């Protein structure tokens, strides 16, 4: 399949600070890509480079097969939605939607039909004559999406579009964006720091840190097979439990934590089978830890004491210790846990992740 947006060896320097480091990204036609990372990781910068709002220091950008590295934003075939909505305050919603088309000198009836179509899709027809100041946050963001929609472009760029909304609206609009993508089948590149948004919306997620893409994969792979410690710790809330120790290779590989707890990891599928013995980190997601009798059948189980209980409604989060390592696990909300209670927990290391301590990469 032809790639819709393609970034080749892109670097961007602000003075001596390297914000993007020789970055490569290929986005397929109709794909929903989420750039995810903490603030300052360069994700918004990358989006601005793709939009043409920032000049790159090195490398090339292709959109729809054309080299647009030096092209003006309007000539790139993109529409963009901003975090602060960026609606022109003195114009009505209709004028906001049609501004770009009027700049391009489009015919009146063509403008009207495009505005009509976009406002139907986004259900903002009753708002067309209002000013942005008289709209709610969700309505404003819908208009901002509409402004990208009327441009009839192949690529949509979203720069943290939901971050200014409250939690309820955020999840409503998230579904709406997903629905919009399924209906329009445009390529979408979406920047966010919210991992729930990333996991729910993306076809593929690019996790960024310090101007580099750490891992580019579908949400399931990102969540279950993170390529390094950074990705493993960043994705997932509550975050993955990490046990430091030593991994002994061979026919029956075994992991021994620093404080002497032995975890057999025979069923773990190694990317690269260990040969000798080396320092390693075992990561286990809280929901992969099983409580009670079911734990007995798993390759690893142990008795622990409950230290803190956090009921979350849908489930309950319990804090405990395996050896000296703090560990959290999820339990069904109907299971009654009390502080100080001794319980049996276990997990299957095959569902966990092993990382090399030195390189932090997945084993």
């Amino acid at each position, binding site marked *: 399949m032809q790639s819709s947006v393609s970034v080749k060896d892109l670097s961007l320097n602000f003075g001596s600070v390297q914000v993007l480091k020789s970055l490569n990204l290929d986005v397929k036609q109709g794909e929903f890509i989420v750039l995810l990372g903490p603030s300052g990781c360069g994700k918004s910068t990358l989006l601005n480079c793709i939009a043409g709002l920032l000049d790159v220091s090195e490398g090339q950008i292709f959109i729809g097969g054309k080299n647009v590295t030096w092209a003006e934003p309007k000539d790139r075939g993109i529409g963009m939605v901003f975090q602060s909505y960026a609606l*022109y305050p003195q114009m009505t919603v209709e004028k906001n939607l049609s501004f770009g088309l009027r700049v391009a000198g489009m015919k009146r009836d063509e403008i009207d039909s495009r505005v009509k179509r976009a406002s139907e899709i986004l259900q903002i027809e009753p708002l067309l004559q209002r000013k942005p100041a008289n709209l709610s946050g969700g309505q404003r963001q819908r208009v901002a999406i509409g402004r990208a929609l009327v441009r009839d472009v192949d690529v949509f760029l979203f720069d943290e579009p939901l971050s200014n909304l409250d939690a309820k609206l955020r999840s409503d609009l998230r579904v709406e964006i997903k629905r919009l993508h399924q209906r329009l089948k445009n390529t979408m590149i979406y920047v966010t720091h919210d991992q729930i948004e990333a996991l729910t919306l993306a076809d593929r997620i690019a996790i960024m840190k310090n101007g580099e893409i750490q891992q580019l994969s579908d949400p399931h792979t990102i969540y279950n097979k993170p390529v390094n410690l950074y990705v493993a710790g960043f994705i997932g809330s509550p975050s993955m439990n990490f046990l430091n120790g030593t991994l002994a290779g061979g026919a029956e590989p075994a992991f021994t934590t620093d404080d002497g707890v032995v975890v057999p990891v025979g069923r773990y599928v190694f990317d690269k089978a260990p040969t000798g013995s080396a320092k390693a980190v075992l990561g286990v997601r809280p929901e992969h830890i099983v409580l009670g009798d079911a734990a007995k059948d798993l390759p690893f189980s142990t008795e622990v004491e409950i230290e803190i209980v956090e009921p979350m409604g849908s489930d309950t989060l319990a804090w405990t210790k395996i050896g000296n390592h703090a560990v959290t696990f999820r339990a069904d909300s109907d299971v009654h846990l009390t502080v100080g209670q001794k319980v049996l927990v276990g997990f299957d290391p095959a569902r966990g992740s092993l990382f090399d301590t030195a390189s932090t990469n997945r084993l």
Partner: protein
Amino acid sequence: MTTNAEASGPRPRSFFTPTRIVIYGIIIVAALYYLLPLYVMITTSLKGLPEIRIGNIFAPPLEVTFEPWVKAWTSACTGLTCNGLAPGFWNSVKITLPSTIVSVFIAAVSGYSLVNWRFKGSEFFFTVLLLGSFIPYQVMLYPLVMITAQMKIFGTLWAVILIHTIFGMPILTLLFRNYFASLPQELFKAARVDGAGFWRIFFQIMVPMSLPIFAVAIILQVTGIWNDFLFGVVFAGTQNYPMTVQLNNIVNSVQGVREYNVNMAATILTAAVPLIVYFVSGKWFVRGIAAGAVKG
């Protein structure tokens, strides 16, 4: 700690607390102090000369006469001619209007490009511009006389207009730059994605959002230029003296009788334009200054 079992709703407060009495006392005294000269000027300008000679400057006029006002406007002697302040008023209008319009426009465009279209050396350019606002005008007076003489506009309205436009630049550009910097950058980015260019973004997006700061800039320039004496007396030439220079010539004339009532009327007439501007625009002024001052 004392508690009242019946307490409910807003706490009762008496109006005449000691704090209030002190605050209002100070405010009233300060207001009277500043209004007193104005009162003296108005009453004196409405008196005839014999009544002034009696010497009761705080007394209201016994016989109200508008003669001094008419004289100040039409026939008081400003140097060799005796046409009153009217020609000076029109000269001031001819100087203030173009200087204000040109300087505000250029400063708005500079401020906008300094914030949104950063070019190589734009920060340096801005620093140089700022330094300009710290240098006293008098230092540059003689070089400017030479330059305008070379340009063959010395002694004309054009010279004063040019000088006012140049000297308005530093402070006005700073004002506009700070205001535009406080507008969300994303608006500018959105307009660029929509395909708007330099001038379209300026006129259709930025200007409509910046009316308060335009009001402030216009007020600053109108009052500043109207009140200017130095540039007017140096660059305008005798024919084009602004109102302030002519007022000085009336008040400081050394021949004949000192007509205090005419002097007072002439002064009030000259001060009337800035006063009216402040009264009409006070609300805008405060709002705009606050808006422009937030971000540096």
